[in-house]
């Protein structure tokens, strides 16, 4: 399946998803409400078969907080990027995909620790590196007067 066919197939999976063909990967934007069901479809659908989550990154887009999932199919060898973002910075919530791809459990814990995105239905959401009193250092509005030196 080339990227045009793949994009066509992905469009048919979910009406809410916005599929674009990027330079490197086919990209899907999905609102948080449809994230879990689309993720499950991507893995379980015969023609897509994305069974390998090879990268999960949390991103602070300034106004929004989001998560980027890089997926690959070990059967077909094609890749896709799944993106979801929420505009709630006080209590950001996204569905956990830890029961679809087990590796997500630990990557999500890292994102929670550093960006403060809460993953609902996560089996064990605790902080990895930092005490619970610390802020979320990967956020762009994070301030630490002692340890971060800014050039004037």
């Amino acid at each position, binding site marked *: 399946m080339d990227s045009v066919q793949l994009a066509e197939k992905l469009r048919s999976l979910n009406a809410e998803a916005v599929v674009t063909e990027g330079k490197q990967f086919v990209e899907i934007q999905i609102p948080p409400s449809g994230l879990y069901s689309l993720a499950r479809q991507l893995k379980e659908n015969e023609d897509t078969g994305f069974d390998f989550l*090879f990268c999960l*990154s949390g991103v602070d887009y300034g106004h929004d907080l989001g998560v980027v999932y*890089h997926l690959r199919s*070990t059967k077909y060898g094609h890749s896709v990027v799944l993106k979801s973002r929420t505009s709630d910075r006080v209590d950001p919530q996204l569905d956990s995909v830890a029961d679809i791809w*087990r590796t997500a459990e630990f*990557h999500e814990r890292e994102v929670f620790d550093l960006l403060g995105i809460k993953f609902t239905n996560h089996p064990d959401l605790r902080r990895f590196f930092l005490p619970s009193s610390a802020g979320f250092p990967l956020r762009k509005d994070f301030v630490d007067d002692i340890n971060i030196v800014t050039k004037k």
Partner: protein
Amino acid sequence: MEEPVKVAVDENQEYVINMGPQHPSTHGVLRLVLALKGEIVKNVEPHIGYVHRGMEKMCESITYPQIIHLTDRMDYLSAHINNEAVCLAVEKALEAEIPDRIKVIRTIMSELTRIQSHQLFWATFGMDLGGLTCFFYGLRDREKILDIFEETCGGRMIVSYNCPGGLMYDIHPNFQKRVKEFIKYFRKILPEYDQLLTGNIIFQERTRGIGRLSLEDAISYGVTGPTGRASGFSCDVRKHEPYSAYDRVKFNEVLFSEGDTFHRYLARMEEMRVSMDIVEQLIDNIPEGPFAVKLKPVIRLPEGEYYQRVETARGELGVFIISDGNKNPYRIKFRSPCFSNLWVLNLISRDFKIADLVAIGGSLDLVIPDIDR
């Protein structure tokens, strides 16, 4: 920090103890909280973060050429390959044309890095299982590669030889001669490794059938590198998405289906041979040309997202850059192989003895700074 473990016996009548962070077999500051029934491991909970340096945050305020020097410090045994990942990502974003000479030298250096990393694995794995001789032999031979690195790059372990657009300096005039000498020497020595450890009956008894990882779990947990390939997961980036000069060499992807500790060990032994094959194909055919192309003095990536995968000695390293057009990245994420590989430890070492846990942990070949970043 999280609550210290207060009770020695938990609700399942299991004895809870700490292994690490200063335990020699964890190969760094990794703390494993074990729940034990007698000598049987019932649960392993890794606690990480003892060497977390906030690299991703740090990268947001420095330039791309500076990032290269930070990536050495992630997986310090694959330092050269880490550098290459960032360089390739930057070059891809700038659409820079890279001459063949650079690609070939990078590939040779990567494969030498892989060999020395696997040599250290062999050395420490033997030592974990009680064979101290392995440690001396492994380090003795690894020195030879480090000497070659030192002559060309100036550094031995933390080489920082790559820079966006090429290499820091040209190879040393002795480079080809010494690499060929090393390959000749090591081809003779590698069977000795097998005689000393691989064929040893005590070693085999302690590793065969221990800590079996199935293919489904390997894919679901994102276990890559020799660890994943020992379970039959075809995940070699050099084969699936060739970068640098890997598209012009012939080599086989090492694959096993057993997925136990012994085959994870065997996969690395086999990979050393494969790496030597690759180096041999390239070492006499280094094309002439410049060792670096000139990029702009201040590198600004065009706005967008870039992802580059490379195969380090431990698995798939991904560099994900989001650029907003500035001279430093808006967000950079390192998908490090050890971070994903670590979490199968609980799955595969359950119901084995503590001594087996040491063997299984050793066969995952973890580098702790790569987990923490």
